[in-house]
């Protein structure tokens, strides 16, 4: 069905989109006080519809990434839902993240005001551009503006989402959580079942995965598949990694392995706020070297072309049946569940990322299921006029509301940020059947495939498993250094120790340490 076709289901949801939010705004308006951003007193609006309509005729431009959540928002906007509710025209421009960042950076730094609303991917974008976003604090309590009925407290979002997306360097609220990409472990459960006995005979334990499975277990599984592949090319290789062109996801791929062992972190800074002076990096210490040894071992089980596979390409490789398992961002569940995918139709199981293994731990830290993320917020360009800021805020509220996110999940396989969305009955039903050795594994089929990952991300993104940072001003340079050196390690051009120390030297130099 085309997203533009209307069904009774859609109509009821649209009623919610158009009316429910307005009603909740009235409630909030009645309970809240005034605000420094108020252009007009709350009483100036005859009813809630007026509150939504106060910026009628305004035109806004929203620059964002070309991922499914924004594609879904674009579709909802283009079919007129937002215009009907507010009278505001919004143009949604989508680009690859590096291009989007480049355009946003040029616009925000030069004050050109080409974009009113800016997608704020937590680390790549906010680390560099935090100072150019409007502080939303006053808007959030402004009774003359429409507000989300869910509110904006930390518990109204999925775990740690607000912490990651709202702030950078100061306690200014610069974004509202808009979409997310959290890492989950995806594996071919059909192959685990098929070769389980053979594996158990060789390794002496069951080939089953769950939250207590460690990276050592994953290494065993992956090595087992690689050996099978040597004698039977129809069996996939072992582990898929994110080593291709996109430096950030390579850094994330390594980071979650390292964090699982003693919660190793890139810098000794507060990961929620980040720091403009991060100080010396932890790269080069013993744990980082041990972690790189493990990463290299995982690489050795992967496809020979692993160095050319970025996040998208490694998903293609999984869909083509070239690899048996990988840590991947949960938005990819939609493509993994497609009938055309080798792991489609319920053959893929989703669970929390692997736990650290004692054999790779240096010292006495905690072993956790290291999970990292890219949580993107939506924020407002601080250079635009006050009138436009108010209009832009209305779009922020609307696009991050639970109702719109629920709608988006059905349209594009969106990635909701609101805690209430996974609790909606229809979405709960879509979370599939439990699978594996713990409570977080799920298998499809599912009406909303991304929902299969919700139990895993709820556990993975909570403390102590979530690794949120680092937000540092030269984040994009930093991840480029990490990715390049890790590629050299995997290509056999350096040892784990040389790799860790080279990252340390370059990073400290970069940060003026």
């Amino acid at each position, binding site marked *: 069905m085309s997203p533009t076709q209307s069904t009774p289901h859609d109509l009821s949801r649209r009623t919610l989109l158009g009316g429910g939010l307005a009603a909740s705004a009235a409630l909030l308006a009645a309970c809240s006080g005034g605000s420094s951003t108020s252009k007009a007193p709350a009483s100036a609006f005859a009813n809630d519809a007026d509150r939504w309509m106060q910026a009628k005729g305004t035109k806004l431009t929203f620059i964002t990434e070309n991922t499914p959540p924004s594609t879904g928002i674009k579709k909802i906007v283009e079919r007129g839902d937002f215009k009907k509710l507010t009278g505001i025209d919004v143009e949604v421009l989508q680009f690859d993240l590096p291009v989007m960042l480049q355009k946003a950076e040029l616009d925000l*730094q030069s004050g050109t005001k080409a974009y009113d609303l800016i997608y704020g991917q937590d680390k790549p974008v906010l680390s560099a551009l935090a100072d150019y976003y409007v502080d939303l604090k006053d808007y959030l309590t402004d009774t003359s503006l429409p507000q989300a009925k869910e509110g904006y407290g930390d518990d109204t979002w999925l775990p740690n989402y607000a912490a990651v997306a709202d702030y950078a360097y100061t306690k200014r609220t610069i974004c509202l959580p808009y979409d997310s990409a959290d890492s989950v472990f995806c594996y071919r459960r059909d192959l685990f079942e098929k070769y389980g006995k053979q594996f158990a005979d060789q390794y002496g334990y069951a080939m089953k995965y769950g939250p207590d499975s460690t990276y050592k277990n994953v290494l065993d599984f992956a090595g087992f598949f690689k050996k099978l592949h040597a004698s039977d090319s129809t069996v996939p290789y072992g582990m898929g990694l994110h080593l291709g062109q996109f430096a950030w996801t390579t850094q994330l791929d390594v980071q979650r392995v390292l964090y699982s062992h003693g919660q190793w972190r890139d810098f000794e800074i507060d990961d929620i706020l980040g720091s403009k002076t991060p100080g010396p990096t932890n790269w080069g210490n013993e744990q980082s070297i041990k972690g790189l040894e493990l990463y290299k071992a995982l690489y050795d089980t992967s496809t020979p*072309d692993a*160095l*050319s596979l970025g996040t998208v390409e490694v998903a293609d490789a999984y869909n083509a049946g070239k690899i048996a398992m990988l840590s991947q961002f949960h938005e990819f569940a939609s493509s993994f569940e497609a009938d055309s995918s080798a792991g489609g139709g319920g053959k893929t199981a989703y669970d929390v990322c692997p736990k650290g293994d004692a054999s790779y731990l240096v010292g006495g830290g905690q072993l956790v299921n290291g999970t990292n993320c890219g949580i993107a917020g939506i924020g407002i360009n601080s250079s635009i006029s006050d009138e436009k800021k108010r209009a832009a805020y209305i779009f922020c509220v609307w696009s991050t509301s639970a109702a719109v996110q629920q709608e988006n999940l059905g349209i594009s396989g969106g990635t909701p940020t609101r805690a209430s969305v996974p609790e909606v009955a229809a979405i709960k039903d879509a979370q599939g059947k439990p699978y594996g050795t713990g409570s977080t594994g799920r298998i499809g089929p599912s009406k909303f495939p991304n929902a299969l990952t919700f139990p895993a991300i709820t556990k993975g993104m909570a403390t102590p498993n979530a690794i949120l940072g680092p937000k540092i001003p030269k984040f994009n340079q930093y991840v480029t250094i990490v990715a390049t050196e890790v590629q050299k390690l995997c290509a056999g051009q350096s040892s784990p120790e040389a790799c860790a120390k080279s990252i340390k030297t370059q990073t400290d130099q970069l940060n003026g340490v």
Partner: protein
Amino acid sequence: MSVAETAFVETQAPAPAPKPNKVKPRRFLLPLLLPAVILLALLSIYPLGWLIYSSFHSVSLAPGAPQEWVGGDNWSRMIKDPLYWHSWGILAKYSIVSMALEVGLGTLLAVLLNRSKHEKVLVTLMLMPMMMAPVVAGLLWQYLYNGTFGWYFWFLESVGLLHGGTILGDPSLALWAIVVVDVWEWTPLVALIVLSGLKLVPKDQMEASWMDGAGPVRSFFQVALPSIKASLIIAVLLRFMDNIRIIDHFIALTGGGPANSTKVLPLFLYEQSFSFFDLGYGSTIALTLLLVTILLGKFVVTSFEEREPKRLKDEGEVL
């Protein structure tokens, strides 16, 4: 004119000689040149000045923001930066190999086409890769090389050349894979230029060489090649200028990886300037790239100019 008329004309007072054009061209020199000079200044002199200025500053994009004077910091940083020199090395390897292959293959192609009955159709077909935007060509080849569903990857693996390996994921292969793309896209341009040169080779000279018993190879080297030297130098100059500024194929195919094995200088410059917005450092790198391009371009043109008078002189002596 009759004799009488002539006499009449002759008896007339001599007509005043036409006045020499007293309009001094210098009067109009400035107004005529000014628009072009302004345009040139806007298009190249101002950016060049800004580039030099930026290379001594830490540059902020914010309007009115002070640009911090950093003296020679950007320059000393560049000289000490191993990645900068590494990028030059990759660029040199890439440019020299691509250009040599393109000129060699392009010339061969032109000779074959020149002798073909179906020259027009073949030329049209041959030009198709050249019509493609380089970034599109890069994306196309990225799909062809893709280890999961790429046709070329599958073919090379099937014939046992890759042994289950990879193309773009191998630091020792990736650069040469991009050279192939460049050769595929731009050899037709060289062929076209050389073909136009071959059309000017005197037919009688070729026929004379054949009559003297020279085979096609000897005729080519002794008769055709000296005549198309100018075309070849133009082809070399064009390809050289393009290759030294190349970025599209690299962005689309590898982004400079794996492990910086394809990070050519223009890509390094782009990354510093527009990914990290370190515009001062980017300007410094850009200046060196510009300087080397100008010097090498000048070298090629000079060698062409030196050959031409010599050739013309030689031809004059023969005549």
